[in-house]
């Protein structure tokens, strides 16, 4: 399996090539093509590897080179190739490939076209380092690397103040997560004496639950930051400042899912601690619901999808919290596909409308760009969870799982499902149908996007349609890395330990076979309810925004406080800004003036002043008159003698 090293390094090579020669030789089309080739190669390689693993179900662990030695432990740059990483890698590479292709069209004519693809390739490299890692340090390397890439790409149009700020915000907020993550790594190292997953997994049983919980929670803190869960979610919507392919790739399909992947990757550790799992579940659920509510009332097309991303990530975490790691990963996959589709769709819309973002100003553009509309519709249906699209299979199974395990979570997720269906179709109708609110100038040269943009849409759309029926395959495929008893790299006791841990939370069997699941959910009460919910959401949106039976503004006024709360994103941004940005900055200013300038420098310069002052005092003794001199001599002599004569 040595060829696996190609997977991460071909994008890196592409990055280097573009970085060095991008502006001088390659320029507009060529650098894009190089990037696409680079990522395509790794996509092919990863698919080959995927097939291999799917056939055998083995895992491969390659150590590429030894990065650093601490005591007797070597931190190595390495590849762990097992079903889980294989799946994630494939998702990354394949989705990236299509998004790259899309981007070649999307970025046409941008003055820093090469830079964009250089950054993208860098991102893919870092992402692959993350997914392929077999130890926490390399994971952290990728983790930070994708953070850097996202910083660079969000700030790609850095001449915009908003972009620069968003970039900085995203990096710093991520750093908050990374801080916890790093502490987690340190604690893990101090605890286990190693950072390789496999060794850690096998050592888990020996360690007290408290420490395991601490490690798990600290690491999960990193995930919260990276996957933009409550309370560290605020950066993701602002990250939409970046070009749309970036939003699609980084902030929908891959990077933000890294947290989910990480939790699944460390499943044995999390499974060992009930508290950790519950936390994951709770955080996920809250995010799923709250983000959905935020998405209801936004008018920025990309932000709406961003909030839906938050919410869907919430579903994944909830799934993992419930112990349904397989379903979580499956939802990750499907979400990657249809959310990329949605973003690219909105991207092609933006191209057509010259980066007009406000959906209230759109409408009636579906006729002009059928392919976009069709694919977008498919994506929306998938998101809303309508069979037979993939979203239905991945999402509803999570909700059903929640019903079995925890009613409260179930309620929230259920409500979330309704809201999801509503806001995505609100977006859909307002954009493609409804009344014509579009500015006539734009209307004139409204056109369908070129093929290198539509083809990816079509491919992804078709994937959305068919992928759902491979659910069972996926779940079985993932068993060797997520099902304790079939995890080859666990020792026996570890298997038992992890199994117990899982079974504590995960005591529910979800129907794996897609057709059975479909049938079951069409027959069982719960399934019907869920389906009805989704349809209800769509219908409500249809009534309000297409038929215009009810005026949305009225509703807004009816639920004034609620509307304000949602519209202002639960005031998270304001509070954070007040405390951590403005507060911190002002506090620093004050500290600088008081602490450094007045107190410390006051003492330092003050001592100089004091000595000068005392110099002036002593100077007075040299009064120039002999009498004074001799008097002081007399005093000096008298005291000098007295010192000895009296003291002795």
């Amino acid at each position: 399996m040595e060829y696996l090293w190609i997977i991460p390094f071909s994008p890196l090579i592409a990055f280097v090539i573009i970085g060095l020669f991008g502006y001088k030789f390659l320029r507009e089309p060529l650098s894009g093509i190089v990037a696409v080739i680079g990522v395509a190669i790794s996509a092919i390689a990863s698919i080959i590897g995927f097939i291999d693993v799917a056939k055998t179900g083995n895992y491969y662990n390659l150590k590429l080179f030894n990065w650093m030695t601490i005591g007797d432990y070597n931190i190595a740059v390495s590849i762990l190739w097992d079903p889980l990483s294989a799946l994630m890698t494939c998702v990354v590479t394949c989705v990236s490939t299509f998004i790259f292709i899309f981007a070649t069209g999307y970025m046409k004519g941008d003055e820093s076209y090469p830079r964009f693809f250089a950054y993208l390739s860098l991102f893919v490299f870092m992402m692959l380092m993350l997914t392929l890692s077999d130890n926490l340090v390399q994971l952290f390397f990728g983790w930070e690397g994708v953070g850097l890439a996202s910083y660079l790409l969000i700030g790609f149009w850095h001449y915009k103040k908003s972009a620069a700020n968003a970039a900085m915000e995203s990096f710093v907020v991520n750093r908050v997560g990374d801080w916890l993550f790093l502490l987690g790594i340190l604690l893990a190292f101090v605890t286990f004496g190693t950072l390789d997953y496999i060794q850690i997994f096998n050592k888990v049983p020996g360690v007290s639950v408290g420490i395991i919980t601490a490690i798990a929670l600290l690491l999960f803190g990193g995930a919260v930051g990276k996957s933009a869960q409550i309370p560290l979610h605020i950066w993701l919507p602002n990250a939409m400042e970046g070009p749309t392919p970036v939003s699609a790739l980084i902030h929908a399909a891959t990077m933000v899912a890294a947290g989910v992947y990480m939790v699944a990757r460390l499943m044995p550790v999390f499974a060992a601690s009930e508290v950790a799992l519950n936390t994951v579940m709770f955080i996920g659920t809250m995010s799923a619901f709250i983000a959905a509510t935020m998405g209801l009332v936004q008018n920025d097309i990309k932000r709406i999808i961003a909030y839906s991303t938050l919410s869907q990530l919430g579903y994944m975490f909830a799934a993992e919290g419930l112990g349904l790691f397989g379903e979580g990963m499956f939802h990750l996959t499907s979400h990657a596909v249809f959310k990329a589709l949605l973003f690219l769709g909105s991207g092609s819309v933006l191209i057509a409308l010259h980066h007009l973002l406000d959906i209230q100003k759109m409408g009636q553009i579906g006729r002009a760009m059928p392919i976009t509309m069709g694919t977008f519709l498919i994506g929306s249906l998938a998101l809303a969870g309508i069979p037979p699209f993939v979203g239905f299979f991945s999402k509803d199974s999570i909700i059903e799982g929640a019903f079995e395990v925890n009613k409260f979570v179930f309620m929230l997720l259920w409500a979330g499902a309704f809201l999801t269906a509503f806001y995505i179709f609100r977006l859909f109708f307002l954009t493609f149908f409804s009344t014509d609110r579009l500015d006539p100038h734009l209307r004139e040269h409204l056109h369908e996007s070129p093929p290198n943009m539509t083809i990816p849409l079509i491919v992804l759309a078709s994937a959305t349609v068919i992928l759902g029926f491979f659910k069972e395959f996926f779940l079985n495929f993932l068993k060797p890395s997520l099902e304790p008893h079939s995890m080859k790299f666990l020792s026996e006791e570890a298997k038992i330990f992890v199994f117990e841990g899982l079974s504590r939370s995960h005591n529910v069997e979800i129907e794996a076979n897609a057709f059975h699941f479909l049938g079951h959910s069409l027959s069982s009460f719960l399934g019907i309810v869920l389906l009805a919910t989704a349809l209800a959401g769509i219908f409500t949106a249809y009534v309000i925004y297409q038929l215009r039976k009810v005026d949305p503004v009225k509703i807004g006024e009816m639920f004034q406080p609620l509307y304000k709360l949602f519209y202002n994103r639960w005031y998270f941004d304001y509070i954070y800004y007040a405390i951590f940005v403005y507060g911190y900055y002002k506090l620093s200013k004050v500290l600088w003036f008081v602490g450094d300038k007045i107190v410390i420098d006051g003492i330092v310069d003050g001592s100089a002043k004091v000595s000068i002052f005392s110099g002036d005092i002593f100077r007075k003794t040299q009064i120039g008159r002999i009498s004074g001199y001799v008097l002081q001599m007399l005093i000096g002599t008298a005291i000098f003698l007295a010192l000895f004569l009296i003291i002795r």
Partner: protein
Amino acid sequence: MDLSVVAFWILSAVAVISAFGVVFFKNIIYAVLSLISVLIAISGLFFNLGAELIGALQILIYAVAIVVFYVLVISTVPEYKGEAVDPKYALLSAPFGFMLFMELAFVSIYGLWKSGTGIFMPQVVQEVSNAKAVAVILFTKYLFPFEVASLILLVAMIGAIVLGKKDIVED
């Protein structure tokens, strides 16, 4: 109560009183005169102690030579107006002067002074007069310092001349 005691008390009283005169007389002439009386009193004490040579030298060098200098200078310098002592400094110096005096007196009284290490017992001095004894020591053992002392006087003379010369002012 032999004579020397009386002489001591009288002479020392004179010396101290005229020393106060030196310090406090407004008129500089009186100050110089009281200096003379101090010197004479001191030489009297020398005689009283039996150091005739030094006593004589004292009178010769001081009462004649040096005081003449002073009188000369004073005669060229017109009489100085303005008060003799600066009261501020008087007030400041008095306590510390007293303190120093107490210390010196303490030392003088409680010091373990040696006695009779020398060879010039009274009877020896009886035979060879004090003058001779001093002279012998001065011109044998202390010849070298004596020569140097002459150099000092030479230097002082030159200094007095060159400093007192007119050209120092305009030239």
